[in-house]
């Protein structure tokens, strides 16, 4: 027993190194997905019809792709093109490929979180902004986005916990994140069960910490009558 605990203890530095890669990957892909997702959602809600349709096609395509398939196709596709044309700039590190693929994939899901949030805002507020003489972009920046981003936090927290675990697929293209570190240690030590229980616990802690942090943010930026107070208000009613 003591021996096993010692093994876990000795594996921790490597596993935590992997956990840091997992976190870096998660944060980077979420940011890529956030920027693209917001743009896709804005296009879907406010764009002219052709743009809205294009955005919907984009969103459906990436939601239809299994992330593992996408990772492999893009990773080997890029390498193939780079080799064929001798484009060295296209030889991306696997971490960057993972950020790109996960980011695009997540942007499709995030776009729907933001679309729901944007559509929850009464259009009358935009009318009022335009009546003050604001441009469309100003109305979006000062009225839509501050409200939509607040409303999106609960859904976004869900996306965080989802993609955090999806990043283990980056294993397949050789990114040494948490699951891959676990795999390497487990095959070396032949303690598959023990090591992966430890890996699972680390995922649990990362998920817990992340969603807790987002809950803090949600409370911090809450505005009476908008998101954040809802729990208390609902609790009072039912």
């Amino acid at each position, binding site marked *: 027993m003591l021996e096993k605990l010692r093994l876990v203890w000795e594996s921790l530095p490597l596993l935590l190194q992997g956990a840091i890669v997992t976190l870096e990957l998660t944060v980077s892909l979420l940011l890529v997905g956030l920027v693209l997702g917001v743009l896709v959602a804005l296009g879907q809600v406010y764009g002219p019809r052709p743009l809205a349709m294009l955005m919907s096609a984009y969103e459906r395509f990436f939601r239809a792709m299994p992330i593992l398939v996408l990772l492999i196709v893009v990773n080997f596709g890029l390498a193939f093109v780079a080799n064929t044309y001798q484009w060295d700039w296209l030889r991306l590190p696997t971490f960057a490929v993972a950020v790109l693929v996960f980011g695009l994939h997540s942007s499709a899901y995030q776009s729907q979180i933001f679309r729901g949030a944007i559509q929850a805002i009464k259009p009358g507020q935009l009318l009022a902004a335009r009546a*003050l003489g604001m441009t469309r972009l100003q109305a979006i920046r000062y009225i839509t986005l501050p409200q939509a981003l607040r409303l999106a936090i609960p859904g976004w927290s869900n996306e965080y916990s989802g993609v955090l675990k999806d990043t283990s697929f980056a294993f397949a293209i050789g990114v040494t994140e948490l699951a891959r570190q676990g795999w390497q240690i487990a095959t070396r030590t032949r303690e598959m069960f023990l090591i992966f229980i430890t890996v699972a616990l680390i995922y649990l802690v990362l998920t817990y910490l992340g969603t807790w942090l987002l809950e803090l943010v949600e409370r911090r930026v809450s*505005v009476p009558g908008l998101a954040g107070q809802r729990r208390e208000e609902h609790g009072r009613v039912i």
Partner: protein
Amino acid sequence: MAVSSNIVVRIEDLHKRYGNEEVLKGVSFTVRQGEALAIIGPSGTGKSTLLRCINRLTEPDRGRIWLEDTEITSPQTDINAIRQQIGFVFQDFNLFAHLTALDNVRLGLLKVKRLSKREATERAMQELARVGLAEHAEKYPAQLSGGQQQRVSIARALAMDPKLMLFDEPTSALDPELIGEVLQVMQDLAEEGMTMVVVTHEMGFARSVCDEVIFMEKGVIVEQGPPQQVFVNPKQPRTRQFLGKISELYGGT
């Protein structure tokens, strides 16, 4: 306050159609500086559409509108520059839900008029005080009553220093006991000489505060004149009928 002979708004032959329904069928009138004009009439007769055409929140199909010497309906006109000069008050307030009362009033000053933060704050507080809400500056819309929200929205419009204020049924979404505080603010404005066009079902207000009344039905102006004439001696039978129905409902105007 005297109404001057300077014309602030001129509307000529305004048309608007939604699908098969022609909502405005050639509406023309002028509003002089300092004049308070009430537009009354049954629901769904194009009153709100007319008001929204004036600052082109709704694009008219045909007809021309001028604000002083600038043609609002000309494609060359910078509509955002025009809208800064026209205050608009909506039936359901449309306050920005994520901003305090102060920030609601301040936003246009900061982002559209590009005032410094200090100037914008000062001006916004003045306007909030003018509608009697200085002590509520830090509250969010959800923390204010309907009447207070509507007064904030009036302050938000006034802060831009408009040449003209448009009110689209400003008291229709309010509980009866809150209507008075909003009408009082509007009456003060009219007495200070603000040029205003008010679409309203408040006949008492139209009659006692406004200088001119337009009765609209089915997309046309049926009758227009000073309130004494329209309310006491309407020339058109339809006007008489409508006013009769209203006084039946509300027990006298």
